[in-house]
């Protein structure tokens, strides 16, 4: 079966299936929480099933081409179509989003944050899933924009309703930031459309289709390209987030409920970087070359800056949030080199960061459940009270600081590597300086993560919690305590939700080719314009 054209219903189903679940849940009374959880979980699982089917049908030998390609008329008058397709660059993220949703659902089974109301919470999550999946398959700028925006509101409410003390400020900030970016991005898209219309050869129908624009976008005049790229840059950079636009991230992450943080870290941040590799750079190569040094600069600033931010934190979750700034810095550095190696690193980095940081936020959430605080100063000796949780934290910290053999390394190392020789036309000296700074960033990463690990996991438990440990290390996960203290080791739901993450981190770390094989061809296609 030729997946390039046939069975193109798969993606649509995979994208919109969650909405079916939403409709079902709308008719279930609010009180019946268990049923809601069940329906939501089943929906998510069904979606994941479709995802697996996609995986089996995907033609890995042609990973460079768009597969399951579907194009139907959507908004004729503005010549925007419902165009969807999947290639090696989007497949990992598309699939990751489905997995993450399922696992978050599992985690939510007994972790519905206050103030309760599972119905609304799960519905929002399903809507999020649709938005995320849709963004990764959309091959039409307008469609992309719609999905890109679709994730905003659910996340806004997830933070604002189920978040921490300062949730309202954080949620509004998150929203306004992203909105600002995407407004300018939309202007950029439309301007791009009209600019491209001018340079299309005879007989080519102007449209918002990404592949078409990627083919002819290079013909657009240089200055116009630079301006349009600027618009898109702000849109995506806010989402990434890159250095000057990052301040929404720590607040949003810190205030969001665990599930929110996980989805935010695992998928939402990737929408921005994905926008760069899928839209901005392939379509506007000239402008990309102009901007690359500046993007790289902001990226390395972000690396160091995020690391410093981490060292200054007293709150575990906020620290992890800042670490995202640093890690996305590595991703952006890889992208800014405009080389296949850099792009591969970037996309691998996206997935790896999604898994690792998502996992870290899970751990942070569980710590909060146990100790009811995330003050690093008040924590300590976790390895004594909850050996499993402690070691998982250690594992994630190691993965996050880019230890070879774990997924994080393959996002970090090739990115640094690629900075040594950027694409033709970019100043080598500049990027070599960036490389050194980035390498320094890896050291700082080790510093703040181990420091965190030492202060939280090592040593003796603080007196205020010391009394509460009632299970000697060993069979922690069975100790569901209905009486008294909350300090108990990883429970069964957490195991179910986390094991896939941990496995994935190891597997991709040990055999990265699993992903590189899919990404690489697509990346080379995307970088045609650079002779990559």
């Amino acid at each position, binding site marked *: 079966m030729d997946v390039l054209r046939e069975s193109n219903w798969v993606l649509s189903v995979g994208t919109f299936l969650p909405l079916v679940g939403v409709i079902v849940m709308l008719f279930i009374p609010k009180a019946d929480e268990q049923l809601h959880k069940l329906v939501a979980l089943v929906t998510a699982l069904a979606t994941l099933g479709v995802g697996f089917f996609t995986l089996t049908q995907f033609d890995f030998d042609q990973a460079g081409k768009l597969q399951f390609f579907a194009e139907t008329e959507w908004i004729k008058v503005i010549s925007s179509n419902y165009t969807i397709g999947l290639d090696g660059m989007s497949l990992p993220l598309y699939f990751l989003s489905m997995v993450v949703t399922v696992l978050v659902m599992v985690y939510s089974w007994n972790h519905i944050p206050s103030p309760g109301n599972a119905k609304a919470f799960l519905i929002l999550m399903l809507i999020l899933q649709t938005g995320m999946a849709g963004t990764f398959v959309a091959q039409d700028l307008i469609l992309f924009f719609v999905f890109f925006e679709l994730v905003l509101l659910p996340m806004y409410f997830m933070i*604002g309703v189920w978040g921490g003390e300062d949730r309202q400020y954080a949620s509004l900030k998150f929203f306004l930031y992203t*909105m600002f970016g995407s407004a300018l991005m939309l202007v950029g898209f439309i301007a791009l459309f009209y600019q491209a219309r001018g340079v299309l050869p005879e007989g080519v129908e102007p449209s918002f289709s990404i592949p078409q624009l990627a083919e002819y976008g290079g013909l657009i005049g240089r200055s116009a390209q630079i301006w349009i790229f600027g618009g898109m840059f702000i849109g995506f950079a806010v989402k990434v987030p890159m250095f000057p636009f990052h301040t929404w991230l720590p607040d949003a992450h810190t205030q969001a409920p665990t599930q929110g943080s996980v989805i935010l870290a695992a998928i939402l941040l990737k929408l921005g970087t994905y926008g760069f590799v899928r839209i901005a750079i392939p379509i506007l190569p000239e402008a990309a070359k102009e901007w690359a040094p500046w993007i790289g600069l902001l990226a390395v600033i972000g690396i160091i800056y995020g690391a410093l931010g981490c060292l200054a934190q007293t709150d575990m979750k906020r620290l992890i949030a800042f670490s995202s700034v640093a890690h996305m810095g590595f991703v952006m550095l890889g992208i800014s080199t405009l080389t296949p190696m850099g792009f591969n690193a970037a996309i691998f980095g996206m997935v790896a960061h999604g898994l690792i940081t998502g996992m870290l936020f899970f751990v942070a959430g569980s710590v909060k459940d146990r100790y009811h605080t995330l003050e690093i100063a008040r924590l300590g000796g976790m390895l004594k009270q909850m050996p499993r949780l402690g070691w998982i934290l250690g594992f994630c910290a190691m993965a996050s600081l880019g230890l070879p053999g774990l997924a994080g390394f393959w996002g970090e190392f090739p990115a640094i590597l690629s900075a040594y020789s950027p694409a033709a036309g970019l100043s080598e000296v500049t990027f070599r300086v960036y490389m050194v700074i980035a390498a320094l960033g890896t050291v700082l990463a080790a510093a703040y993560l181990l420091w965190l690990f030492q202060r939280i996991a090592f040593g003796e438990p603080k007196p205020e919690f010391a009394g509460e440990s009632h299970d000697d290390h060993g069979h922690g996960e069975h100790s569901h305590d209905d009486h008294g203290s909350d300090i108990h080791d990883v429970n069964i739901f957490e195991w179910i939700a986390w094991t896939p993450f941990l496995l994935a981190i190891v597997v991709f770390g040990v055999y990265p080719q699993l992903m590189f094989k899919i990404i690489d061809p697509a990346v080379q296609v995307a970088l045609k314009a650079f002779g990559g």
Partner: protein
Amino acid sequence: MLHSILAQIPWKSPSVDYHAIAPEIILAGGICLIILVDLFTSETKKWITASLTGFVMLGALVPVLTLAVSDINVRSLFDGRYVVDEFALTLKALFLIAGYVVVLLSQNHVEEGDYYQGEYYTLLLASVAGMVMMASSRDLVSIFVSLEMLSIPGYMLAAWRKRDRKSNEAGIKYYLLGVFASAIMLYGMSLLYGVTNSTLLSDIGRELTVKGQFGGVQALAITFTLVGFAFKVSAVPFHSWAPDTYEGAPLPVTAFLSVASKAAGFVALVTLIYVGFPQAQDVWQPFLWVLAAITMTVGNLLALRQTNIVRMLAYSSISQGGFILMPLAVAGTGDAAGPALQSVVVYLIVYAAMNLGMFAVVIAASRTTRSGEISSFGGLFSYAPGLGVLMTIFLASLAGIPPLGGWIAKFTAFRAVLEAGGNWGYALAIIGAVNSVIAFGYYGSIMREIWMRPAPNGETSAVKTPSSLIAAMVITTTATIVFGVLPGAVLRFGDLADLTGAFGR
């Protein structure tokens, strides 16, 4: 003898296409009918007038549809002074449906407020009739007449709650400023007539010499004429009546004013610009550019500071008006005319849907909260999830968040501006983009109240919403969502609405 006299007078009655003016006729008949019914029904039966009004509106919709499907797509009466083309039909339909929704909104509100129902609905119908006429007027006189016909009932409706000081104030402010504005407009019109020796727009369009070479009188005339409608669409700085009037007037009336009469103003603006002054873009483009820019900005900034939801909606509708003006500001450059007109129509349709829906929810909610303060909506989601979600949908749509109707409206506006291109176009686009962000500042604050704040004074009894309101919400919500998900639906109307008919005789 008589024959000879008739022979001397060069008068022959014009051939009237009654199918074309059927909607107006039905409305007129409806007005009379309701006055009569009102006379002969007891106080307890007054609700009949309400339902009758609804039927009249829908009845008037029938000929609109038949006209739409009939194969003659341009019917021009009274040698071009009154044209029924697709543009006109689209907007007539819009006005009638909006009017119907307003009736739905009014029903309980008016009943419980024991106002004078018969008169209320009569005036409502009269105003709608004025708008319907406005949609096909292509002559200064007819435009003026229909403008007054839709305004004067508006003045009275605004002051409808006779014993309420605020309502009086709203009415008198609206009235004085409205009359003043139309007086200025008339002065401009008189000058127009003077320089072109015609009141027929298409003639004026021809007479106003080719761009660039005309004197100050024309500029003055055009500006003054536009002022009258800039007032109707409450464009800054001609907006000052809007907040006060909206706040003071009864909620359904506010809905009506903020949607229908604003739309009528835009219709007149569009016909004037496209048919009347196609050559004179050097005059009206800068004028409208400035109006659009400051309208959306000032509207947003002031809205940020409001604590009363109606007043905030007033400012929000002002800034939305700025967005509708945005494409008109560049309608004269390049081939932006088509997209600009399209985006105006689309925006009007979508805006009508979401704003009416918003007011429907506010009316329903304020039945329990009994207050216009934003803070009184705290925790709405917790005790009235349905209303909470609906309000969120409309707010999001107003903020222009996909996939709700609002975004496609904004999108077409941006598209038109960027189609025109040029520094002015891009600058306006950027301003619009920034404003769309600021706008979320206050839309979001309402959402925050609904979702994230506890209910004030622990009011958590479930809200009981009357069926008419529910009907209104269903209509508006469906429209909002459908327009957003399948924009083709609404954009088709925008496409139909070209003004070709205006020039045809």
